[in-house]
């Protein structure tokens, strides 16, 4: 089938490219645009390493047709923080020792961000965090330090919210 022009908004920037209709968002990100922060593994939404945010909600980019992502705000790990200005979740993952091989980490951080953003005033329990990230497999860490990092990040976010209205 023929390629057609696709316009995607990724991390706030517009990308235009010719795409085959069956290409997934993951394929377009990695193999057409060259954004490699979004990882590739099972391609069946079982491992979660390909997680991106679609209008702020975590989704598996391996099963999302790129054409279906048109008109939505796509956020990848490259859109979250920079070395000088890390996202608080990225900072917490480093501090808590939640990163080992790191291949699941971009997806894990975005899964966590989507989850925390669902309910900004709430510090979730460890069990709630575990439920939220269960769709992203990590083989290295046994998850404990990942739960630590998300928990710490949620606490800091709440503390910041309490501080800001006063300021």
């Amino acid at each position, binding site marked *: 089938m023929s390629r057609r022009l696709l316009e995607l908004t990724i991390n706030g920037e517009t990308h235009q490219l010719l795409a085959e209709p069956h290409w997934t968002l993951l394929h377009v990100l990695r193999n057409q645009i060259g954004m490699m922060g979004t990882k590739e593994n099972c391609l069946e939404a079982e491992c979660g390493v390909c997680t991106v945010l679609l209008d702020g909600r975590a989704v*598996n980019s391996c099963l999302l*047709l790129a054409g279906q992502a048109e008109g939505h705000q796509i956020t990848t790990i490259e859109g979250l923080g920079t070395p000088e200005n890390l996202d608080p979740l990225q900072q917490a993952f480093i501090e808590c020792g939640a990163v080992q091989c790191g291949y699941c980490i971009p997806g894990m951080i975005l899964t966590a961000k989507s989850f925390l953003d669902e309910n900004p005033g709430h510090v979730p329990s460890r069990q709630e965090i575990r439920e939220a990230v269960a769709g992203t497999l990590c083989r290295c860490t046994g998850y404990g330090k990942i739960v630590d990092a998300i928990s710490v990040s949620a606490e800091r976010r709440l503390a910041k919210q309490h501080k800001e209205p006063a300021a």
Partner: protein
Amino acid sequence: MSFDLHRPNTMAEAIGLAARLGPAARYIAGGTDLVVQINRGRATPQHVIDISHLADLRHDIVQTADGFSLGALTRYRNIERHPAFQDALKLLPEAASVVGGVQVRNIASIGGNIINASPAADFVPALLALDAELDIQGAAGRRSESLRDFILGPGKTGLQAGEILAAVRFKPLPAHSATAFLKEGRRKAMEISVVCVAASLTLDASGKTCLAARIAVGAVAPKAYRAAAAEAALAGLPADTASFRLAGQLAAEQAAPISDVRASAEHRHHLVSVLVQRALETCRQRIAGA
């Protein structure tokens, strides 16, 4: 694998496209079932019609005098978190929250899951236990069909060519009712059910006698079924362990499970009776606690 992707704006446009393109076309919403099928070579559509954006295809949960209406594009994650489903309709978030990971539940639609008609679908038994009705839009207009009649077998439904499942409706539960959904798999998340059970139980005002029960069982037959014999037997029985155990046994008699890599038929059979009994017990406790 290769196909054309179409992105119509309304149901009428989508239905028109489907009529023009014929059997080589498939609708796509969240895509979490269809894209896997395409990748595994189990579906080979030449045209894929994206219905995830149709202006008149709902993705919201609406409460009416007559109960609830869930747009077919409603996502599981929204059901999990919906405040109206945290009490008597608890089986809805319980079933919705065990479909894949959060990433799938953020995009997969309940309509797609019904159309996919997997025997192991988690949400279907929950809706069966609510006697859900489906609103189906076709070229000629809208029709309704009960979910129970709609699913015919693995991957097979009563959806006619070009039709779009538009909404799922169910009536409110009578007083002194509660629901529960239970599932078993090898892990505690990311599981395709070995067995799943949804139940809705109504007791009398004293809370001691069963007035009515609706019990649906998934993953142990070509399609999820209502445990009719168990439901019939429960009416009028005391709401106690013996009655619930009997219901479990009757529900299991109706099962026709297969053995596969996930579990043996024997184990599935056993789990049906355990889970049905437990789901009913959970309902009873919830009624008592309400």
